[in-house]
């Protein structure tokens, strides 16, 4: 282990300094270590060290059946478990050519979008925390709590749901859930205004984030950055619109992109504001899906008795709160995957950290890291 902690002090120039950040650090959103080379207060190079949470996800998958993989996908991106379940279920269903009942499709979209709201609330709240605003964090968690209550009512779990199964769902909607969700939306939609007043248009917050850590469009694409981070750089790209899966093509919603209102296109503020805007859009989708939701139908109807996909391979991707989540699955006709690769959006987002942070102050690194909204569970898998 001595190699890993070697700070290469021998090669340090007299005026340069190496600062070790992490692995246990409140601003790294998990167990991440950054080796930051600085020239005074200015960052000259960042080397991220990841893998502290590596749990051999892909190796596990080669040893368990397709349905047993689902709880593992929960634990990859534990902030947005529903979306991870969803992506995996969609991939295996494509491989097996399963058609899912209408009711299931609607419920999936509803829970996925609710989870997107919850995830963005956490991202927004902790981003405020990173740059020194404590209060918005409490407001965000207050509202996130209500979504977790809805999920608890749905499947008993508050964080790791394993709710979306291959070909169906684990539980049908409980009595009164739809009404509760409407109630939540009625309460929640006006709240966005409150976050805007508290944080988004707060002068201090804008000073800390506008023009900081600009991620230009070409760099973002080259680094495979996706999701809100890519849209913050002004690229109108959302899989829900551009490569629709499930029933997303039936709903009307906008794809917000960064416009550089407060500074430059692709700065921290843009990335942050995309999330606020997406919260509103997701609420719109939930409302539409609730209105179209068929009341009849069995959510277990299309569950396959045996999950043995035919020989073949598939690369399937879905839009999670963090970006394109891809699963590459190779099947050899057995009930266990031959190879399962997960392409995690946070992994690609973190890889550009050096590119966008050099030249900024040490305190700006926290803002940049917070604005990328990474989840280490997903990066390390």
């Amino acid at each position, binding site marked *: 282990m001595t190699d890993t902690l070697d700070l290469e002090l021998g090669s340090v120039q007299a005026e340069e300094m190496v600062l070790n950040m992490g692995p246990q650090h409140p601003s790294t959103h998990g167990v991440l270590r950054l080796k930051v080379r600085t020239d005074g207060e200015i960052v000259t190079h960042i080397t991220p060290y990841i893998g502290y949470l590596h749990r051999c996800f892909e190796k596990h998958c080669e040893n368990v059946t397709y349905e047993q993989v689902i709880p593992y996908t929960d634990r990859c991106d534990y902030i947005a478990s529903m979306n991870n379940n969803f992506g995996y279920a969609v991939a295996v269903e494509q491989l097996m050519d399963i058609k899912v009942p209408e009711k299931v499709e609607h419920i999936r979209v509803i829970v996925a979008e609710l989870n997107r709201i919850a995830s963005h609330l956490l991202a927004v709240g902790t981003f405020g925390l990173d740059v020194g605003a404590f209060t918005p964090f409490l407001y965000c968690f207050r509202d996130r709590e209500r979504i977790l209550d809805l999920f608890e009512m749905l499947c008993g779990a508050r964080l790791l749901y394993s709710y979306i199964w291959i070909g169906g769902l684990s539980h049908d909607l409980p009595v009164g859930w739809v009404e509760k969700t409407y109630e939540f939306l009625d309460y929640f939609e006006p709240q966005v205004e409150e976050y805007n007043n508290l944080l988004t248009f707060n002068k201090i917050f804008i000073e800390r984030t506008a023009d900081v850590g600009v991620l230009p469009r070409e760099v973002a694409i080259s680094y495979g950055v996706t999701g809100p981070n890519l849209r913050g750089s002004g*690229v109108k790209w959302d899989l829900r619109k551009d490569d629709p899966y499930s029933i997303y093509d039936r709903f009307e919603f906008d794809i917000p992109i960064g416009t550089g209102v407060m500074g430059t296109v692709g700065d921290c503020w843009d990335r942050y504001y995309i999330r606020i805007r997406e919260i509103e859009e997701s609420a719109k989708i939930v409302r539409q899906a609730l209105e179209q939701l068929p009341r009849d139908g069995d959510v277990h109807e299309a569950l396959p008795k045996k999950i043995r996909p035919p020989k073949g391979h598939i690369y399937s991707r879905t839009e999670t709160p963090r970006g394109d989540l891809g699963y590459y699955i190779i099947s050899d006709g057995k009930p266990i995957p031959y190879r399962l690769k997960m392409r995690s959006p946070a992994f690609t987002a973190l890889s550009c950290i050096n590119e966008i942070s050099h030249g900024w102050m040490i305190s700006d690194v926290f803002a940049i890291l917070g604005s990328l909204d990474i989840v280490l569970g997903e990066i*390390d898998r």
Partner: protein
Amino acid sequence: MASAVEMHFKQLVEYINEQFRKEFVQTGEEAPADHISVATADWKAFAEFLKNDEQLFFDAMMCITGVDYGEESDLGVIYNLHSMKHNHKLEVRINLPREKPVVPSVEQIWRIADWFERETYDMYGIEFQGHRDLRRILLPEDWEGFPLRKDYEFPTTYHGIEVPKMKEGWE
């Protein structure tokens, strides 16, 4: 961002055979219908062509997957490419001999390949020639062996600490 020039797999193959090199991609009844296989020696030039050609413009790399095709056969690398501009997709496969798996790195063409290639190296021991910083990424630097290979043997000790053996296989 989708535009009218989106090409499907057959059109892509035709275009590549026309523009890059004649009969570069195998066509006919037996040819795979959703991916193309490339020889190691051609990969670098082909990757540059895919990235820079106006009609193809594969500017985004979605994924790099390492594969072990079984203890007796080859290792492989699978590249999934995507064009943000034209919205077409392509899967490129390269097979590598198990004894000496070496493939040219495309890290300077698509920057994300940097970490993806490091991960593939970490898990399969595939060497990406020309990669500027090829070291382990998820596992500790002193880890021995490449865990996702099918013939990987689980270590019984780690730094002198005994690791209890788990139940064998799937049942």
